[in-house]
């Protein structure tokens, strides 16, 4: 019985691949547009004054961040889970009608949630908390989608043939638990319709409006415990899950060190959550929380670099593959960007550096070298690896892939260099005093000086978006071309991997 060939079912993976690409295009297009709005404010009304309310920077900014984080990235996480999960657990989705149903239900509810989120953000219904802008009805939809994903993860684990959980599974489990905990606690809110007026009126005002359970400094503390660790558990942990699977698979190399994986995993789990305080340096949260945030941010270099070095050393002796394969290029540059941004982050978390960096564009630059270089590249690479296998067709064009790689890399470099210069210039000008002890620059001086960097950043973003459209085209041509193989057979026994 155990020797029967096993065919994996990628129905749900394909569905999420689609939303990864669509929401990636949406989120990145909005990003490029609002980037140019800062360089050329006339763009705020380019679609006419009547809809200017919906195209102004403030209204679009949450749409950009949420569609790339919860649209593109989370779809990428789900898509890779529904591919990787079956393969490392040695069990097919087709073996359980229940899990297949859960997977599809999760997808459709997710699409519904995305639609509700997009409409509500456009209308201006926001809780104002960064990366947690959704009002309570959308929050509930998100929680349901997340729980369904949990059912899918543990359901598949429950019927697995391979008893030992591969490293990628550790990281997917951690993603599920981490995001679940963070999201629940940060979005504790009271719908205002529950209030009763002194004369007994109820259901007053908008039913979907709510206010935070926490006030002021406490609210800020919870928000950045969430905000920072959303980065951890959406932009780091699941992306490591991907690279631990796709890099060895694509390169044919075994993971360099199991011990290093262990150290990095448990280290990351323990250390990451402490570091949120570095978003609140010199604010009104208690000093010891700020100091802990700083210190643990530095310590965080260890587990982060542990994973990244483990990846790079996996390529030991096989570096010619980097030159030969654009797909390996994506993954190797992704882990390099991971090292780079996990060094930059701790530097910015040092109190004296943060005094200059906080509130500036340097922070924006830091976020984007992580998200564009590490998250974006790794998801793109994963989908490139998956496409021929789930669609049973050859990849449409490797040349296009290579061109995309260089265009996007150039885009990222333009992005972070312009934002570094912009951020440090801003930070230094804000604090500069003249010889009499007066402020040396007006606030407008610090805005005017940024124009060329804002423009350059927009160009960087546009290059990245161009590459992403090439990626979408490449995948589209792949799935719509003539099939080359009927199916991919795998042995059901664990050792047949």
């Amino acid at each position, binding site marked *: 019985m155990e020797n029967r060939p096993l065919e994996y079912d990628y129905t749900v993976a394909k569905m999420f691949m689609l939303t990864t690409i669509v929401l990636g295009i949406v989120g990145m297009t909005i990003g490029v547009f609002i980037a140019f*709005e*800062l360089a050329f*404010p006339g763009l705020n*009304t380019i679609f006419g*004054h009547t809809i*200017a*309310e919906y195209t102004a*920077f*403030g*209204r679009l*900014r949450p749409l950009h961040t949420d569609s790339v984080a919860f649209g593109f990235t989370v779809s990428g996480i789900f898509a890779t889970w529904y591919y990787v999960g079956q393969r490392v657990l040695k069990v097919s989705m087709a073996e359980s009608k229940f899990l297949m149903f859960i997977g599809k239900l999760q997808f459709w509810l997710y699409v519904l949630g995305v639609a509700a989120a997009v409409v509500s953000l456009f209308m*201006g219904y*926001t*809780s104002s908390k*960064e990366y947690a802008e959704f009002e309570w009805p959308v929050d509930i939809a998100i929680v349901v989608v997340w729980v369904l994903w949990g059912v899918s993860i543990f359901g598949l*684990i429950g019927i697995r043939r391979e008893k030992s*959980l591969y490293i990628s599974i*550790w990281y997917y*489990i951690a993603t599920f*638990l*981490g995001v679940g905990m963070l999201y629940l606690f940060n979005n504790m809110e*009271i719908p*205002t*319709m529950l*209030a*009763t*007026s*002194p*004369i007994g*009126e109820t259901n*007053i*005002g*908008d039913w979907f*409006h709510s*206010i*935070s359970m*926490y*006030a*002021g400094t*406490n*609210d*800020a503390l919870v*928000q950045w415990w969430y905000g920072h660790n959303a980065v951890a558990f959406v932009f780091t942990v699941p992306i490591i899950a991907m690279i631990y699977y796709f890099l060895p698979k694509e390169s044919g190399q075994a993971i360099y060190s199991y011990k290093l994986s262990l150290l990095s995993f448990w280290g990351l789990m*323990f250390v990451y*959550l402490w570091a949120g305080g570095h978003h609140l340096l*010199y*604010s*009104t949260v208690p000093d010891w*929380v700020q100091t*802990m945030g700083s210190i643990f941010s530095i310590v965080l270099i260890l587990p982060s670099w542990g994973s990244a070095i483990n990846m790079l050393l996996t390529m030991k002796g096989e570096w010619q593959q980097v030159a030969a394969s654009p797909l390996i290029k994506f993954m190797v540059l992704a882990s390099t960007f991971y090292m780079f941004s996990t060094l930059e982050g701790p530097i910015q978390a040092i109190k004296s550096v943060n005094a200059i960096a*906080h*509130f500036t564009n340097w*922070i924006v630059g830091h976020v984007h070298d992580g998200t564009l270089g590490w998250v974006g590249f790794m998801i793109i690479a994963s989908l490139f690896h998956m496409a021929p296998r789930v669609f049973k067709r050859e990849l449409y064009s490797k040349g296009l892939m290579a061109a995309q790689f260089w265009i996007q890399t150039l885009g990222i470099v333009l992005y972070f260099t312009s934002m570094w210069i912009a951020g440090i210039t*801003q930070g230094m000008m804000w*604090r*500069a005093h003249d010889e009499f002890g*007066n*402020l040396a620059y007006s*606030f407008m001086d610090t*805005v005017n000086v940024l124009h060329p960097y804002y423009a350059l950043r927009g160009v960087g973003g546009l290059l990245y978006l161009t590459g992403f459209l090439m990626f979408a085209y490449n995948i589209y041509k792949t799935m719509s071309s003539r099939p080359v193989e009927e199916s991919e057979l795998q042995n059901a026994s664990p050792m047949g991997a």
Partner: protein
Amino acid sequence: MFHWLEKHPFLFSVGVFVTIAFAGLVEIVPNFAQASRPVIGTKPVTLLEQAGRDVYIKNSCNSCHSQLIRPFKAETDRYGHYSLSGEYAYDRPFLWGSERTGPDLHRVGNYRTTEWHENHMMNPAKIVPGSIMPAYPWLFTNKVDIDTAYATQLTNAEFFGVPYNKPVPTKDGKTVVIKMAKSVAGAHAMALAEAKKVAAKMKNQDVKDAVARGEVPEIVALIAYLNCLK
């Protein structure tokens, strides 16, 4: 131990959860036990100010403007006294922001006037040459949602004990009572009375006409809110 854990998904997950939950318990729970208390002079917002705060949030002003003055000379020179924890005691949600594409607004009420905001929101670049802030003409025509602002006040009072209709100490040693309406109809009357005071200082005829008709444009509420940031 690790090899064994990797074969037992449930215990593995428990282990992961305990490891990640630990930091939150240590860092966050103590601060809740000692919830931030208001400083002398911190008042709850009035109804119109609350409505203005909702307009501020609706347009994500906090995407570009902070409300947190750090304790550096350059910041206190530019924006005024550095921010204190107690000043935020009634802020749900907090609006510190994370970017200063525009200047900090925590004490903007000290150095900008109704007239200035009116002109600036209609066309920022005309008042501040080189400004990259978008114009907000729709605030002059959209009507503010008084009902939701009132529901927010009620929620703050009922669930979180925010002291409406109670004496609150002020900096000059006296007390002030921030009133809250008893009914939705009362709330509308109260918001309109507040709006009339703000509109009296404004020039835009459409806004003045709207207030005279008993409507409250968003801009009036937003200005009331910005003026209360001190």
